[in-house]
């Protein structure tokens, strides 16, 4: 999980942040496609996409370079949900998000100080255990002292949730970008490559890990508070859904761990694929989803972005992207033919699957070709 080179000119450093701002600003106009009472469905779908982008990018900021595989996303996301459930009636959404983020930050910092001395699988298991611990602790408390199982969350208009998450995504993406360029990011990468060596050259490894873990938990908690307002009713198993720990990891692996764009691409692709498969291919959903994951891990261990990143030839990079786009177009055409024949299959399923297939096949063809050239 190496960090890519962070060089470039002073002007070059501004290009990506400006693109991020421009894209997010452009997206904010999606709210005009509906009304506050009746948003368009694209806004609803984007709330899920933006939510997963926050989770995946946050996970990648800490776990990507450091190599500490945290499965605590569901824990802090769930805390955010409960903050909304408890205070949603009295506080506006931005305040709820900040409060949820602050609580997540403090708890993550405390837990980090205790557990980030653990390494490898011990840390991973502990973070997963944290999800279950919080779930059952809150369930026990609610049943014992409040005599209830679930809580209603005050609903907030989708457009407001969308804009709030858009701002959060902007902050998280800019943070991800600048952390990669900073000494702090270098320290995190150093920890991932050899923690003892990093400590030897003067990096306060525990401090760096705790700050990164807590800061990313802030964003996860804030995302939970925003998403809760669209869920309306929650209980501990719903709030602390363990899948929320695994999905961001899968998205990052698919897109490319340790890269800037990988988690974003993974979050977008997986959310759209999930939405399309569950609505059009419900019986095939998990089979197709599982197959995509297995193929990705076996043939693209560095993810989509990582695979392109390790190609040295710019021509090959362009060719691979072109081929992928071509396969997506074929998938789109195939969809149109089936739709014309009266078969409803979901507009983006085949373009996405064809695109992934084209990418996997030709990325490996290029890799073998390179191997033969070297031989």
């Amino acid at each position, binding site marked *: 999980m190496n960090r890519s080179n962070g060089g470039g000119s*002073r002007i070059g450093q*501004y290009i990506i*942040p400006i693109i991020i*701002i421009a894209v*997010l*600003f452009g997206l*904010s*106009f999606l*709210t*005009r496609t*509906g*009304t*506050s*009472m*009746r*948003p*368009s*469905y694209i806004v*609803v*779908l984007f*709330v*899920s996409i933006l939510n997963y982008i926050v989770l995946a990018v946050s996970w990648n900021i800490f776990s990507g370079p450091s190599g500490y595989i945290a499965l605590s996303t569901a824990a802090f996301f769930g805390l955010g949900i409960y903050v909304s459930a408890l205070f949603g009636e009295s506080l506006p959404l931005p305040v709820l998000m900040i409060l949820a983020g602050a609580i997540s930050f403090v708890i993550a910092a405390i837990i980090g100080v205790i557990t980030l001395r653990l390494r490898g699988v011990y840390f991973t298991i502990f973070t997963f255990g944290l999800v279950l611990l919080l779930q*059952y602790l809150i*369930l*026990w408390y609610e*049943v014992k002292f409040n*005599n*209830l*199982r*679930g809580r*209603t969350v005050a*609903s907030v208009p*989708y*457009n407001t949730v969308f*804009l709030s998450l*858009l*701002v959060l995504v*902007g*902050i998280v993406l*800019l943070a991800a970008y*600048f952390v990669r*360029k900073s000494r702090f990011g270098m320290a995190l990468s150093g920890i991932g490559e050899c923690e003892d060596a990093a400590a030897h050259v003067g990096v306060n490894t525990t401090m760096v890990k705790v700050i990164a873990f807590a800061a990313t938990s802030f964003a996860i908690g804030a995302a939970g508070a925003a*998403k809760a307002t*669209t*869920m*309306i*009713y*929650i*209980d501990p198993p*719903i709030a602390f*859904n363990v*899948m929320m720990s695994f999905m961001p990891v899968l998205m990052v692996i698919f897109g490319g761990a340790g890269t800037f764009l990988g988690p974003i691409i993974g979050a977008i692709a997986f959310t759209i694929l*999930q*939405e399309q498969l*569950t*609505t059009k291919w*419900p*019986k095939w*959903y*998990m089979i197709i989803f599982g197959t995509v994951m297995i193929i990705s891990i076996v043939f693209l261990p560095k993810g989509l972005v990582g695979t392109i990143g390790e190609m040295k030839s710019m021509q090959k990079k362009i060719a691979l992207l072109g081929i992928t786009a071509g396969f997506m177009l074929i998938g789109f055409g195939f969809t149109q033919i089936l739709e014309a024949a009266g078969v409803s299959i979901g507009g983006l399923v085949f373009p996405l699957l064809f695109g992934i297939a084209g990418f996997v096949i030709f990325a490996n063809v290029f890799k073998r070709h390179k191997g033969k050239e070297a031989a």
Partner: protein
Amino acid sequence: MSKKSFLSLFLVFALILSLGAVSTVSVQAAESESGYTIDPDKTEILVGAVRSQTGVFAMFDQTAFGPCYRMWVDKVNADGGIYVEEYGKKLPIKLIVYDDTSDMNQMTQLYQKLILEDHVDFLLPPVSTAFLSAAVPIASQYGYLMIGAEGGSDTLKESLAKYPGFFSVLNYSETQIPAIVDLLLEQGMESAYIIYIQDTHGIEYSTAAEPAFKEAGIEIKAMTSVPADIADMTPIVTDAMNSGADVLIMFAYPQINYPAISIAKTLGYNPKMIIMGPGGSFESAKAALGGDAGVEGIIFEGAWNTKSSPEAAQFAKDLAEFNKDDPNFGMDWWGHIVYYASLEVLQQAIEGAGTLDNSVLAEYIKNNHFNVSMGEIWFENQEIAHECFLGDLGQWQNGYPEVVDADEDRTADPIVPKPEWAAE
């Protein structure tokens, strides 16, 4: 990048987004929600549902409401559709069902999809009380009717006034706990051991039972809560056995009830009465617990049977016939007839009011009586009136689900004390 440039960038970013948000809000304020309109080109009634077809709640769609709504759509369309006066013709139903994978996020998003993208005319309810609690406000927000199915609770009922388009259909603790008390008193039971699941159902039933039992002079030996995913019920069943209570009551679901019964058989624990929560009324309980003999004498929340009325008998026959090729199907002697009645109510309301306008139909449902498979039913405070139910408690007797309420719904006298467990 210097600290100053970094902060400047953030400020610019926040400013641009804020401007975008403000302009959006101002546009929204100028717009208004459009009301119901008649589409002259309409050829079908779009009915949408988000159901758990996979995941932990999938068994409910397979065995509870699922068989009912599938048969209803089939029967309606076989008859040419539902006559809608404002269209002057019968319109067939097109059913759109999305799988929420038993996930709340998916469920809420997919209801939005049904409403905002598919523009369905009607919504069917999701699986489970928790999901229904989230779906009802969404339906209400967009002016849709939502007639409940598997889910429902006292907590949800408290908010009925907020959701004028929501109708609760199953009988719950407020009627079933008094029915249990009446039966226990009638049969001379003096003490009970209560196991309840840490779920809305378990919490509400146990909460209602405590004062009701106390008032009736029935001693509660213990009230034990269990998590939904408890791995081993042996210690709790052993505790119940050692308590010496006359009655074992389980306000819990099949994943707890069935193993608890199996353990009771293994331990030779056979109290005078066993009352089982949801799942006890499923025909499939017999398969899980050793056939007719395996459930003999067990009392369950419910209930109705083919002796309740000729219409009920016909419904049971039709439902079994329609689902005969479905290996997951088994009759539910609590919910099935109620779920189907809710769909018949919707159909009769459309025919009676002559419109697909959900708000008009909500009023029509509140103010009219309906002749359905349950017999004549009507709603009081957005709930099916209690006297419309065909029973609150059932008991397996020779593999048949007798209604054993201590009132006129009874179809057979209860067998108390419960017979010894049959040898397996």
